[in-house]
């Protein structure tokens, strides 16, 4: 039984089909990579699952529970949370307060006072010593960790990570990749991750799907996907495959 199931998910903006009948399933404790060229519809996929956008067609189920047409904040309470590619901390709240706001919405999945759970999450992502700082004083890597902490504070069952690693230096990138694996192993969350940094996707993902022009063009293990001719064509242009 899959944890999250997406069926025929589509989104059109006027005449543009940003996402075209995408199907995917996510198993319990699985890490699913989503790759594809810019404009392939990856972030749109996340926005639809997380309820930031309403789908034109299609369904999203968490277990038996339909999520499509639920407002974003209720989807979070159900246990599905996203992070943003361009981090969006609340600049007027401290790091701890940022995580606390999220910790208030863990639904029935966690017990104890929200600030305590928020502090625990900061410890987990390695921001405990910066709990009382304002987000603006953090480095980009720090803000990416905060974005992760905020998502983890709702004790998610499904975590949607939008380019958490991209834009970081090699050391930080490796540290965050390790953190993502620990989220699955130690906190039991299932993860869908959009990532441009190929070594990270390839080493972390159990499975990978490839989007291009809103369509799903390939699916398989990382090793299978990189050999797929259609994928190479999407990235390098037709005839680009060796």
């Amino acid at each position, binding site marked *: 039984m899959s944890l999250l199931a997406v069926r025929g998910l589509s989104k059109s903006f006027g005449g543009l089909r940003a996402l075209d009948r995408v199907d995917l399933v996510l198993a319990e404790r699985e890490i699913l990579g989503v790759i594809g060229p810019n404009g392939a519809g990856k972030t749109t996929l996340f926005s639809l699952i997380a309820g930031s956008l309403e789908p034109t067609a299609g369904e999203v189920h968490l277990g038996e529970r339909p999520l499509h047409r639920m407002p974003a*904040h209720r989807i979070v309470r159900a246990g599905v949370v996203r992070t943003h590619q361009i981090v969006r901390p609340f600049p007027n709240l401290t790091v701890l307060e940022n995580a606390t706001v999220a910790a208030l919405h863990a639904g029935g999945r966690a017990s104890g006072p929200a600030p305590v759970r928020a502090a625990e999450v900061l410890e987990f992502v390695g921001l405990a010593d910066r709990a009382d700082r304002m987000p603006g004083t953090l480095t980009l890597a720090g803000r990416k960790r905060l974005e992760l902490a905020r998502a983890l504070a709702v004790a998610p069952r499904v975590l949607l990570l939008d380019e958490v690693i991209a834009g970081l230096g090699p050391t930080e990138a490796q540290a965050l990749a390790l953190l993502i694996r620990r989220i699955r192993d130690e906190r039991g969350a299932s993860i869908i991750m959009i990532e441009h940094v190929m070594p990270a996707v390839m080493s972390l993902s159990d499975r990978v799907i490839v989007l291009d022009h809103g369509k799903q063009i390939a699916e398989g293990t990382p090793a299978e996907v990189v050999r797929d001719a259609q994928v190479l064509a999407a990235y390098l242009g037709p005839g680009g495959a060796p």
Partner: protein
Amino acid sequence: MIGRVPRRGVAAYAGVVALVAAVPVVFPVSPYTHNLLTFAFLMIAGSLAWNWMGGFVGQVSFGHATMFGIGGFVAARLILSGALPAPLAWIAAGLVAGVVALGAHPMLRLRGPYFSIATIGVGEASRVIFTYWEGFTGGSSGLSLPIDPILKYQLYWWGLGLAGLVGGASWLLRRSTLGLQLLAIKADVEAAADVGVSATFYQDLIFCLSGAVVGLTGGLYASYFAYIEPSDLFGFDRSIGFVLMAVIGGLGTVFGPILGAVVFVLLRQNLLASYPELYLGLYGGLLIVIILFEPLGLTGLGLRLARRVRRAREGRRS
């Protein structure tokens, strides 16, 4: 709650309120000053409550006169009919205003300037409607309440009590997890939704509470002035007044609106007497200067001065 309520802070706050309460008993203040202070307390309560929405949630309402007016006329009608003693009539006025404020729900989908413009429209529409609704408001001739010198004298403490409670509530709200969520909505409504905060719910809740307190204030104002008319209570001046007091004192700060209300009442009283045609222009200028140079108003100015003094002291020591 984030952290515990510091006992010392509560004691200091209660002490200040008690001192102010003792003023008319200890010092023989003139009836003019006594009444001016009463009016200031009402404005403090109103601007603090306005700041919950305008400062904490960041939704600047130019229509709070609607709740002020509804509170005033509901209280006046209840007192005139003899149905309720004044204090209960004020509370009823607050409850009615709070319920009416829930009607802002569709407007609260709008954000920023769009929301503000919508509140101007609704505020002005309500002024016109209540001016024409003579059966309730007495139309342009308004309503007169029986003159009650004792109640008017006591209003000082009713007003102070209300202002004290609303100030305490503001402080608790700012420190509570509810307050954190309001600040999150203010910063980024979509990011707030993405961590589970329902902007719709909290905005409705705060607009309702804010409207209820402003309605309560309107009720006390009806008893204070003893003569009320729709063009005054529902007037755009009133709505602007709430915005100005909070902005002068420090938008979104906890106690700024108190300072702002005091300055506003003093300025208004002096300018209205000598230059009635100038005072709105002066407020406009003041607003622009504050927004340009010190967005946190007097509170920001105070903090800046405190920093400078501290730095000067440290400089002298080394």
